[in-house]
């Protein structure tokens, strides 16, 4: 018997700060979180901007952050997980914990700094340089006894974690799963992207724009509580939405470049739609991967044309990376929450930085300003090096879902 997959809680963090209010006052209000990097000297690099959280905007519960400081992945994820579980109204003691992360790079660096200085690596945080340690720590701190896995497949990592969580619930292998991802702006990762000429030197990312010149990194973390919709209903929990479909597919094309026609991304989207039992025309919004790179945005546009055919011109599309930056292993988790908010609020977030639409990326873009729209189903897409692609179909909460409105949820601005 297949089980519907409900979303009953989330916690989220970006360069705008912690929680849905930060997203509503940032992403949905058409603001960008990019600022000159404060955490390290950018003089050796081409790029100088990132969407760092520097303490402005809603703070992270229990985590102090200011200019120049880097919040730890585990600490931020713990805050997100606590918020998500509180919103869901469950302790989920048997839940698996599935987290997209490539380890906390700031802690790996601290290990080598300690070693070079002749100090014993005393910081417990240095353990977080091991990706698998991060879900373990969250599970231990929150008393969650289920299996723990880190998803380390780069920019689809959090999407993969959510997709696997949905797969486990759908099949009955689990009833509740805590899933998401995290990535912070660190010098190590910044240097790698800069060396690959992937970062723009501008203070803006311009997804789908003719003059786009690359991506910028952003802080991000998100944790969602997914559970069997039947279980959620039985315990009177408020269902915020559903993961109606999920799909993953590979390009089989290149080590780092996307397939020019976005073949794998289109396949992932089609699998997700098929699993949701939906014709493409039922999708009312697409949260695109849209990194602002020359090749990636064209490939994604081609993928959307393949999936939606002639209908593509009537599907609103935005990339919120123009606002949040690219959050790497966290990006699919944060964007799933953004997409859920769009469904809840009836407001589609804009693409920032779009000065002149690229004819090769012609879609129904939402430039600069959020667009009101009542949407039932939305598609969220992500892609990673190696031609790995992932798609989620999210469904707005149904009128029949019931459940008491959760007064712990943050108010709409």
């Amino acid at each position, binding site marked *: 018997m297949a089980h519907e997959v409900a979303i009953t809680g989330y916690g989220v963090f970006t360069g705008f700060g912690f929680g849905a209010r930060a997203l509503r006052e940032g992403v949905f209000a058409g603001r960008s979180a990019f600022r000159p990097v404060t955490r390290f000297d950018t003089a*050796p690099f081409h790029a100088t901007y990132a969407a760092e959280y520097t303490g402005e905007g809603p703070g992270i519960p229990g985590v102090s952050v200011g200019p120049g400081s880097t919040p730890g992945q585990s600490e931020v994820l713990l805050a997100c997980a606590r918020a998500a579980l509180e919103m869901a109204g469950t302790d989920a003691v048997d839940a*698996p914990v599935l987290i997209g992360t*490539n380890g906390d790079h700031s802690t*790996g*660096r601290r*290990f*080598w*700094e300690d*070693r*070079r200085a002749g100090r014993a*690596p005393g910081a417990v945080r*240095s*353990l977080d340089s*091991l*990706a*698998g*340690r991060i879900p*373990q720590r969250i599970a231990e701190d929150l008393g969650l006894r*289920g*299996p*723990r*896995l*880190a*998803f*380390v*497949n*780069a920019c*689809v990592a959090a999407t*993969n974690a959510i997709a*696997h969580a949905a*797969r486990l619930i*759908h*099949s009955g292998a*689990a009833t509740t799963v805590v899933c998401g991802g995290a990535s912070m702006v660190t*010098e*190590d990762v910044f*240097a790698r*992207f*800069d*060396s*690959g000429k992937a970062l723009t030197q501008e203070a803006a990312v311009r997804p789908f724009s003719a003059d786009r010149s690359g991506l910028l990194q952003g802080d991000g973390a998100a944790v969602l509580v997914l559970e069997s919709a039947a279980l959620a209903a039985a315990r009177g929990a408020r269902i915020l939405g559903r993961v109606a479909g999920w*799909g*993953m*597919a*590979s*390009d*089989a*094309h*290149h*080590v*780092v470049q996307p397939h020019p026609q976005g*073949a*794998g991304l289109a*396949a992932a989207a089609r*699998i997700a739609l098929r699993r949701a039992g939906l014709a493409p025309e039922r999708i009312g919004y697409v949260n695109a991967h849209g990194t602002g790179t020359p090749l990636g945005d064209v490939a994604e546009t081609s993928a959307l044309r393949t999936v939606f055919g002639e209908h593509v011109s009537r599907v609103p599309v935005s990339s919120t990376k123009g606002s949040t930056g690219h959050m790497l292993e966290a990006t699919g988790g944060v964007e799933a929450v953004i997409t859920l908010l769009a469904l809840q609020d009836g407001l589609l977030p804009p693409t920032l930085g779009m000065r002149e639409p690229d004819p090769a990326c012609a879609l129904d873009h939402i430039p600069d300003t959020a667009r009101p729209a009542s949407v039932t189903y939305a598609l969220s897409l992500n892609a*990673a*090096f*190696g*031609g*790995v692609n992932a798609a989620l179909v999210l469904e707005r909460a149904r009128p029949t879902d019931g459940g008491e409105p959760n007064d712990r949820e943050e108010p709409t601005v």
Partner: protein
Amino acid sequence: MTTTASLAPAAAAVLTPWGEAAEGLPGAAGVNLPKVRGFVGSRFSPLVHAVAASCLGAPDAFAATGSPDAPAGERTGIVLATQFGDTTTTDTSTQRVMDGQVHNPLLFFQSVTTSVLGHVAKVYGITGPVSCVSGTTALASEALAMAEAVLGSGDVDRLLLVGVECAPNERADWVHTTLSSGPASGPDALPAGDVAVGLLLRRATGGEGPVLGRPVLGRPVPGAWAEAFGWLVPLVVAAETHAGAAP
């Protein structure tokens, strides 16, 4: 998430590269691994590529295992499991940044675990789902369970499971020892040297040979295996079970 009774290996390979420590063990190699174009300085990606190739065979032969209705590449997925991943690349990158050196773009690309899998996917035309996971607790069992879940979803007919670990560097050794409160043994131990195990898995339907249930995976193994293979022992057992059943 930890049942594996519905999995059957269609092909398997173990690589325990050269050296005294590998003598007499499954997969001990007499020669260095072939390089993978575009990947430098680390044995992680060559290990992954070599063990995948050992499992999948020649690309043409692999393609021939499919059918017009179920092309081999389209109906195959990949799950890669590793505790520490490519520590050579990761820590070389970190130390270059600390030294103020210009970063090597090749290290950027190969620092991402999916890059070498993109290479494997291209060679074999694999367009199914690709996942990479890390864990500190019973990773082999969790990886097998994940393989079972992916196969059970119906998205693919076969799944290439790769377990891989490079000889621990100083950071990996310190993290692992600290987490284990001492040198770890058992299902979460790190192998002493480089190890990769590949299993091409399909769902068991009956009559196809060995099935990877707990009695098979939990069987007694030679004492040297625990040190040599660490957390990958159950995957080595699965691979050897397949090899023992092969004609």
